[in-house]
């Protein structure tokens, strides 16, 4: 028996999870857990948590849960970033050693892409898409909840790796042969592959869900060319997800087979082809870039029209360009590995296809500028992010064109120039856009605005922090500093620029702290949104109260024009003066614990497989199959809200005549 215990202790807590940083994190995790447990018990909120949140299928609540998870992951990814930057500012006295540095940049990248950017996007999809198209929920509410819980338990699996068993350390791209069992023993990479596989199932289901929602659930009269641009971006993003995730799933599963079952898909010997992993990974990875940036184009299209008080310039051209970006996104993946040496023909083709994407993107940039032209611009926080996005993204795009030039790429590949480029588009594009959307839709989620003055502080610190961090990194790349090094010799002339870059990272850290303070402050003191239309909006989500009632629309309006709510306001119409006889009994999806249990069962499978404990895997697998079978025969999935109850709720909100 004691030998069994010793085995467990050695497996779960090897020496690389017993470093001071990990032990400090252990203390914080346990302390936070105890506080949460104490507060929930003291306030008797466990049942409330279960009934209202963990079992919910309401897209608005799922959106809020995605948002909370995304902000928590932004914190973790950000702390990782500060650790990396601190090390690089102190090359002669590294704070963390090479192994820990590898683990930290791996989790930084993985978390920021898969567990921060993607859930943040799904948060805004969930919150805004059904409301914008005049729907009562997404097409498959239960699958939506399953997607969330698969993501959440996948994220949990990756996040426990650094305190139980050891983190992955092969970078967010996890290239073989380094991920093979020969070079990388231990559970770290198993955690990586399994958590992404589990979260990936959820992501694929989200893609299917929103594709069907947009195609099938629109209010009558809302033809495809009358949809808001954000809905177009949800449609194209969903299509990208559906086609891009299978190659990733295959690549991850085959890598896992190589590790656990001794196959040799990507090994160096036995006929394995390691570069095939790279090919499959970027077959996913390039569309993924657009998965995280197209929704942001949609957000900016809504924000710029609303705060310029003007219809979006060149709507049909915007639609054509977003669809062509979607198609072109599948044809550029080799530019991530030009240096593999596939030959001049292949490289020239993919260099050109990459440059081609700049054309529709440029068209979009000009259309946003022309939307502002002659408009009455309101400098809200959401609009500030939009205005910062345009120059930042243009520079990020231009350096991308430099990298797409094959001969230049042979010099710049894997240097800090590349690091600066992709942070330029991912922070200047994705993060600025997501924060813009956060400020824009916050009133719709919570019924109050975020404080604008604090928001502007956070904005300016993010903006300058970003440039102070990544401006010097372009220069470092040109000076030959490669990525993924934990220290460098003195006398290379890299030190000053690295110190400046690190200062910038801490400025962004301060911006994050202000953002969190802004959220907490505004929960108490934020300006209440009583009309449901705080920004004088243009699309249907602003026609209903904030926060939206459970059923969204008491009656679903018929749409006649592109900016449906703006058009209604021009005609003097409102959804806030319903007649009692207009009310109808509504059918809504019913809460269910199945998605949560399914996610938990998958977590058990993932955890068991990470350590190759097959009895635990079997236990989890039985849970997965049992949950799915039960769900398949569970026909009691709807509830009704009586017309009288709808009337009562709407009257309580002051939205009924007489």
């Amino acid at each position, binding site marked *: 028996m004691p030998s069994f215990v010793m085995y467990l202790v050695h497996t779960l807590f090897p020496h690389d999870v017993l470093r001071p940083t990990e032990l400090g994190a252990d203390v914080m995790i346990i302390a936070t857990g105890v506080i949460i447990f104490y507060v929930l018990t003291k306030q008797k909120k466990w049942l409330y948590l279960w009934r209202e949140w963990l079992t919910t299928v309401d897209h608005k609540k799922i959106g809020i849960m995605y948002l909370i998870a995304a902000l928590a992951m932004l914190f973790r990814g950000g702390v990782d970033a500060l650790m990396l930057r601190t090390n690089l500012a102190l090359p002669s006295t590294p704070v963390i050693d090479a192994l820990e540095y590898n683990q930290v940049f791996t989790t930084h990248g993985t978390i920021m892409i898969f567990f921060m950017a993607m859930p943040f996007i799904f948060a805004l999809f969930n919150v805004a898409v059904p409301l914008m198209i005049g729907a009562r929920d997404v097409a498959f509410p239960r699958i939506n909840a399953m997607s969330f819980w698969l993501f959440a338990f996948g994220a949990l699996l990756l996040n426990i790796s650094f305190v139980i068993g050891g983190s992955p350390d092969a970078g967010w791209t996890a290239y073989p042969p380094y991920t093979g069992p020969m070079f990388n023993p231990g559970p770290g990479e198993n955690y990586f592959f399994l958590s992404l596989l589990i979260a990936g199932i959820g992501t694929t289901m989200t893609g299917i869900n929103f594709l069907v929602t947009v195609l099938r659930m629109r209010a009558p009269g809302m033809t495809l060319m009358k949809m808001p641009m954000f809905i177009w971006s949800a449609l194209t993003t969903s299509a990208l997800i559906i086609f891009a995730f299978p190659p990733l799933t295959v690549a991850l599963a085959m890598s896992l087979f190589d590790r656990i079952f001794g196959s040799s898909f990507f090994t160096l010997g036995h006929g394995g082809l390691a570069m095939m992993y790279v090919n499959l990974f970027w*077959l996913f990875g390039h569309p993924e870039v657009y998965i995280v940036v197209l929704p942001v184009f949609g957000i900016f299209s809504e924000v710029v029209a609303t705060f310029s008080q003007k219809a979006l310039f060149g709507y049909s051209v915007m639609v054509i360009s977003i669809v062509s970006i979607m198609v072109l996104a599948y044809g550029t993946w080799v530019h991530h590995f030009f240096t593999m040496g596939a030959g001049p023909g292949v490289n020239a083709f993919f260099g050109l296809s990459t440059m081609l994407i700049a054309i529709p993107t440029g068209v979009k940039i000009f259309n946003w500028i022309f939307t502002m032209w002659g408009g009455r611009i309101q400098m809200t926080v959401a609009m500030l992010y939009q205005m910062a996005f345009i120059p930042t993204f243009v520079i990020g795009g231009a350096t991308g064109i430099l990298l797409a030039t094959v001969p230049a790429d042979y010099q710049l590949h894997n240097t800090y120039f590349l690091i600066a480029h992709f942070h330029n588009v991912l922070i200047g594009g994705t993060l600025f856009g997501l924060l813009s959307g956060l400020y824009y839709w916050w009133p719709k989620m919570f019924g109050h605005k975020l404080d604008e003055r604090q928001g502007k502080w956070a904005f300016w610190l993010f903006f300058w922090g970003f440039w102070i961090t990544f401006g010097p990194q372009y220069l470092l790349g040109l000076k030959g500093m490669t990525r993924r090094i934990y220290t460098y010799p003195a006398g290379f002339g890299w030190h000053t620029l690295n110190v400046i870059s690190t200062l910038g990272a801490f400025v962004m850290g301060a911006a994050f702290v202000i953002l969190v303070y802004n959220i907490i402050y505004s929960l108490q003191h934020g300006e209440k949104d009583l009309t449901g239309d705080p920004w004088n909006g243009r699309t249907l989500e602003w026609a209903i109260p904030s926060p939206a009632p459970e059923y969204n629309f008491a009656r*679903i309006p018929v749409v006649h024009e592109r900016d449906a709510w703006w058009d209604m306001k021009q005609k003097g119409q409102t959804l806030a003066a319903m007649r009692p006889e207009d009310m*109808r009994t509504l059918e809504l999806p019913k809460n269910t614990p199945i998605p949560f249990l399914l996610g938990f069962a998958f977590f058990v499978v993932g955890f068991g497989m990470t350590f190759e404990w097959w009895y635990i895997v079997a236990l989890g697998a039985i849970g997965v199959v049992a949950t799915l079978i039960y769900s398949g025969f569970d026909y009691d999935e709807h509830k009704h809200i009586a017309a009288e109850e709808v009337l009562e709720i709407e009257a309580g909100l002051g939205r009924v005549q007489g």
Partner: protein
Amino acid sequence: MSQPLEFRPEAEDAVSDEGEALRFMRPHFGEEKFPWIQIWGYIGSLVLTFAALIMVVDHVLPPLALLSVILALAVGQAALQLGVFMHLRESRGLAWQIIFLGMVLLMAVGMVGMSIWIMTFKSGVS
């Protein structure tokens, strides 16, 4: 000045109103008491998967023949998944299916074909 607001008619809360002309586009769903088709489809998909696995693991055929056979099994698997689980036969008419299937074919052939082209670097000059 103010015009009355139109709402979606109640009947629509159940089914959308396509015009008479588009009647053939209306969805028709197969409903059965017990999902036998799906159960057989599930067993069939497992058989196809394990057949491919075992043939490769045990090297039952010379490489070229083996590749041809597992490719044929993959096509069968795709047909089975589309027919049984993607409800290809219970649809709003063929017009929509052809657009999407065509796109799927284009993407699949594009991805596979281009991957083969890219990976020829092993034999070609680089």
